[in-house]
């Protein structure tokens, strides 16, 4: 019988992308089809063996079952498999990681690539394998970076530790995002601090994707020989083209932000800011309103931003007189609804066509350079980024032609300004819609906005967003920077992990250090229970016990919680005994976790 095995929870042991269209004839070498292989130092013959065999078997099984293979398990590894047209992705991980988590990781990885590069086929037509290999490596390392074993089980967003942060700061972050949304070209946004989410209006998926670029630029900026402009002391603004799937776009459009909402006192439960005077300074904000943000920054901000569907075009924007006057600079724009799908609203269509003609007649991107003097400072994230520096406005030149941005305008001219049809790829793939990610960095703090592509050409909007948020961002950054990380957690006699499924956030007092062997039993049990919860919809709670550890797991639609009590006499025979300490775990968990903000009642 096997010895006690310690679980090996490595997220990724192998990853490859294989292009079957390159290997069709008998004489074609398998290596022709290997677009990317991780780890890159794997000997070529092993790469060829794995790619050839796995791709071959996956194909064969697909034919037998008339459906593509999702999971392929070997004795020592398991692979999540995805197939799209001729492409085949495989992500291998150790067998101890729950299958569902491996599949999720692969999906995230592919989604990330598509988010920044658009369709895979086109990317490989346009770029060399080496360039794209760097991207895959980058995304892969981002998804795995510094994550504890629990992160291989639950894919979750890294958030700032809300327990240490003044709730008012979180509220303030949410307000900054809302203020930015007053510009109709801004869809949604999020604020990150040192690679962690402070506040987000995006879905967890989208936030996760956005964070990759942010952390990349953040790292670059902190390298001593990084791009000089990025590291200049003030705020730096950059942008990058990203690609949204139709469903993501529809989701954004289905929850339009009511531009007028923030300033009318239309009663709506759960919304905090409507009661406030929407002040730019913390001191003005009534502190009583900040109480709900205890639960976490993202929580409150989401409630605010995704208000129920009110057609934006119905609400004429009426700025509060006490508000920032920059909003008034562009009244016609405010009445346009960038988020309506354009079919229902005549006004929006007209505006779009106006925009559109404005674009093309003006000579595409060169116009940006002319009017705003935007300067292309550097390329971020490989080839697809532009950095704008407003302070360099006077030295406007024509060099702002990033080939990527130019492409966008080309696409834009092909279809509507929304670009819904502009970036459709090969008919088999779901169309990807190009959008622009706008980043405004203030030291460790970054404001990330998902904006319409022509936002970049709309100098007025850009300036407005920039100036309206600059002061607030500076203030927020200053506050966040001074926060001292809380005292190292008091040694408590229990371990817990609480996963919020809707927000993809996790709270845990697990140290997550690789060497923490005493945490292993907890991680192992959590991994098993999580798989069980995923597979059995009706399962609500479970206690499982081995000789040494008893773990309690409970879940609801929105959350999963796992709890292990250290110590206590675990001496037992395993025979049912109602005095057994294992069965008091649910009660203990309920009491103990309350002070961590986890409510199991």
């Amino acid at each position: 019988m096997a010895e006690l095995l310690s679980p090996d929870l490595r997220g990724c042991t192998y990853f490859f992308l294989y292009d079957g269209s390159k290997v069709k004839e008998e004489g074609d070498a398998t290596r022709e089809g290997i677009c990317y292989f991780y780890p890159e130092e794997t000997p070529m013959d092993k790469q060829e063996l794995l790619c050839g065999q796995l791709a071959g078997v996956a194909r064969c099984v697909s034919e037998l079952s008339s459906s593509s293979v999702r999971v392929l398990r070997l004795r020592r590894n398991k692979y999540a498999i995805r197939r799209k047209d001729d492409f085949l992705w495989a992500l291998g991980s150790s067998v101890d990681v729950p299958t569902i988590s491996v599949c999720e990781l692969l999906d995230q990885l592919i989604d990330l690539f598509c988010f920044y590069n658009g369709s895979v086929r086109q990317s490989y037509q346009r770029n060399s394998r080496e360039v794209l290999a760097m991207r895959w490596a980058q995304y892969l390392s981002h998804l795995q970076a510094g994550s504890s074993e629990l992160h291989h089980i639950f894919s979750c967003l890294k958030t700032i530790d809300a327990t240490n942060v003044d709730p008012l700061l979180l509220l303030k972050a949410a307000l900054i995002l809302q203020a930015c949304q007053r510009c109709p070209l801004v869809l949604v946004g999020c604020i990150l601090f040192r690679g962690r989410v402070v506040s987000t209006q995006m879905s967890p998926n989208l936030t996760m994707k956005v964070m990759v670029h942010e952390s990349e630029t953040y790292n670059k900026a902190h390298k001593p020989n990084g791009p000089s402009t990025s590291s200049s002391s003030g705020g730096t603004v950059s942008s990058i083209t990203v690609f949204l799937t139709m469903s993501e776009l529809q989701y954004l459009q289905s929850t339009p932000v009511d531009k007028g909402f923030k300033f009318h006192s239309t009663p709506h439960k759960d919304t905090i800011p409507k009661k406030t005077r929407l002040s730019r300074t913390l001191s003005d904000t009534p502190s009583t309103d900040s109480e709900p943000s205890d639960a976490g920054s993202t929580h409150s901000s989401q409630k605010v931003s995704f208000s129920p569907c009110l057609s934006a075009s119905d609400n004429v924007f009426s700025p509060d007189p006490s508000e920032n006057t920059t909003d008034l600079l562009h009244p016609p724009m405010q009445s346009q609804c960038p988020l309506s799908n354009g079919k229902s609203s005549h006004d929006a269509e007209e505006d779009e066509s106006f925009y559109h003609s404005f674009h093309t007649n003006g000579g595409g991107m060169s116009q940006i350079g002319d009017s705003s003097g935007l300067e292309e400072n550097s390329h971020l994230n490989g080839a697809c980024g532009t950095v704008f520096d407003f302070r360099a406005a006077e030295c406007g030149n024509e060099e702002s032609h990033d080939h990527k941005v130019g492409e966008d305008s080309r696409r834009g001219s092909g279809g509507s300004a929304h670009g819904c049809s502009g970036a459709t790829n090969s008919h088999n793939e779901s169309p990807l819609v190009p959008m622009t990610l706008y980043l405004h960095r203030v030291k460790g703090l970054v404001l990330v906005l998902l904006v319409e592509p022509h936002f970049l050409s709309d100098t007025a909007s850009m300036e407005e967003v920039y100036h309206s948020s600059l002061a607030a961002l500076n203030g927020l950054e200053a506050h966040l920077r001074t926060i001292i990380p809380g005292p190292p957690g008091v040694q408590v006699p229990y371990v817990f992990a609480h996963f919020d499924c809707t927000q993809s956030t996790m709270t845990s007092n697990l140290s997550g250090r690789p060497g923490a062997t005493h945490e292993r039993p907890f991680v192992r049990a959590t991994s098993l229970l999580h798989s069980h919860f995923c597979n059995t919809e009706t399962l609500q709670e479970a206690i499982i016990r081995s000789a040494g550890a008893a773990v309690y797991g409970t879940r609801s639609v929105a959350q999963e919680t796992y709890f292990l009590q250290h110590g206590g006499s675990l001496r037992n025979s395993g025979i049912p005994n109602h005095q057994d300490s294992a069965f008091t775990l649910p009660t203990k968990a309920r009491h103990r976790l309350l002070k961590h903000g986890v409510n199991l009642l």
Partner: protein
Amino acid sequence: MKCLLIASESAEVLFNWTDPEFQQKIQEQYGASQEEGQRLPAFEDSISTLFAPIIISCITMVDRLGDSYASFTTENNHIYVLHQFDECLYIAVNGDGEEGEDDLRRKIYVMKKMIEVLFGMVTLSSNLLRRELRPQDTEQRARLWKHLQSLLETYSHIRENDQSFLVEAVERLIHPTLCEQCIEFLERRLVQQLNSSIERAGEEVMHAFILVHTKLLAFYSSRNASTLVTSDLLTLIIMAQNMYPSCIDLDDPSPEVGDAKRKAPVPGFFNLGVGTPRGVPFKCSSPVFEFVDPDIQMAEDSLQTLEVPPPDPSTPRRVFLEVSLKEGLYPMMPHSMYCLPLWPGITLVLLTKIPTSAVAMSVYTYLEAFAKLEKRLREGQEGSAATRGQPTIHDLRSKLDKFIKALGPSDIQEDQASTESKCATAPCWPQYVIADLLNNEFSFRFSLIPWCKNMKTQLCGIYRQCFLIDPGPSDVPRHLSPGLQERAQTLVQEKLMDWKDFLLVKSRRNITMVSYPDFPGLIHFICVDRSTGQMIAPSLNITERNTSELGKGPVAQFIKSKVWSLVNTTRRYLQKGYSTVTLRDGDFYFCYFLWFENETGYKLEAVDLPILPDDSPPIGMLSWDYYRKLRRYYSKNHQGEVVKCYELLTVHLGVIPSEIILQHCRQLASKLWEPSRNPLL
């Protein structure tokens, strides 16, 4: 959409079983690629063509990566489980969501177990087993495959419907007085009489038992017999069910009696064995098993036309069972199995030791010696290992020579084939081999490995000659005479005549939840004694006709499905080292406990259980006795103590407070296996 396939390393199909849906799908796929008017290729050909790439890839992975495929899952939830035993690759497929990965793995292991019981040590040589599973003669092959297919179907059917096969333990009929009487009867009257008869032709009845459907009424082992392990007993029950199927699903006995009469064997017409028509067992059960599709029927025809008249019904079935003697453990020792139907649903099974079984023990001893030698040769890089081996080699040689000589004049001498094998063995013991070993030349050592393998194959060949090949008609009786069998049958029939109807009803409602009024909120439980391999559980009646405590049809069906999935779940946790599991699932609260006791009933302290990989053999007692290993593992720290292992599963209503539930569990655990050995009632 189910399929099970055994393939050799050269991608040759050694056995296949498919359900009609899978067969149809395969044929559709082939029909699409086939040109108009062209005849569809034989089903066996299409299936081997379709699976060949998978098999070849699997073998490539083993060769080059040292890792092999364990399973595939597709988007539409088709599951493929692969497992390689020596050179045989087993592939089990499910495409209808009825079986999970664990179920398929279990099926593979059960198939392997059944092949072992049917072919014994021949399974130790992949070469011979390949020939055995795929006889050149198509007629023979069709017959064999049909038999294996029907065994597999019987197993699947019982596992789906019988709690005892769900948890893989034997269920006894709870009627202490009758049980005792029957055991006494088997001992004093039946076995004694049989073993003292001259018509037994040298065979000796070792075990005798009476089955009512799949439940055990009485079991008797003669004094000099070794215990029959649970794994073997369960396999024998499947085989008996396969010969004389009972309709477990139907609660109303009348149609069943009529149905059973139709195929009830005339007295003396036993052991249909290989010739049992396929599909018959299930005509009365669920429509799933009926072949309605004309295409499939046509494909079936190719097999059906080959139907040959069944062999002499009084011929027993050869089975290979584990025997533990003072000298040690001998797996796969030849026995004869006589399955005598008393009435539809009630069967008497006799297991006899055959006169030549000592040969099997010798063969096993030599096989083990050669396996050890081969291992030593492989590992023994340093010379000392071989030197230490020297005396053994000489010993082995002289013993083997003697053995082969002794084998010569024995009763198998007349057999032409055995002479051949003897001739083949003799020259294989060349002088140079000994010289090499003595010289201890490094380079020669590896040349000896194939020779070792060859010797093992030859030994398996001898074994096959002795115990598997039907020597054909001869004057010398080889087994219990038909007359003796008939007498045994009549004897037991007379004894049980008055009980027959009671037993048939009792087997359906062995114990019921009504008997447990002290446990409000308890819906169901299963209690298993893993040391004896026995279980008790209230019966789950799920037919429309009878209203049980669980209510009618759908509700009972729902609870049944919950119980089945609970057992699978707890096994998964047990595999990962968790011996206590409680689950709140919908409106129910499930508990599972596993614990150890010593012989006096003292509860032993829990220890860390081994954590097994996902593709380890399934947890149970039928194909691979996990619990025996577990008890051995436990007793490492409890030397000299008999360790007993128990399991309890309960299903409660979710509204019952957990303290009460745990109290119930405790009461059940202590009551069910009281020292009286007579569980509740």
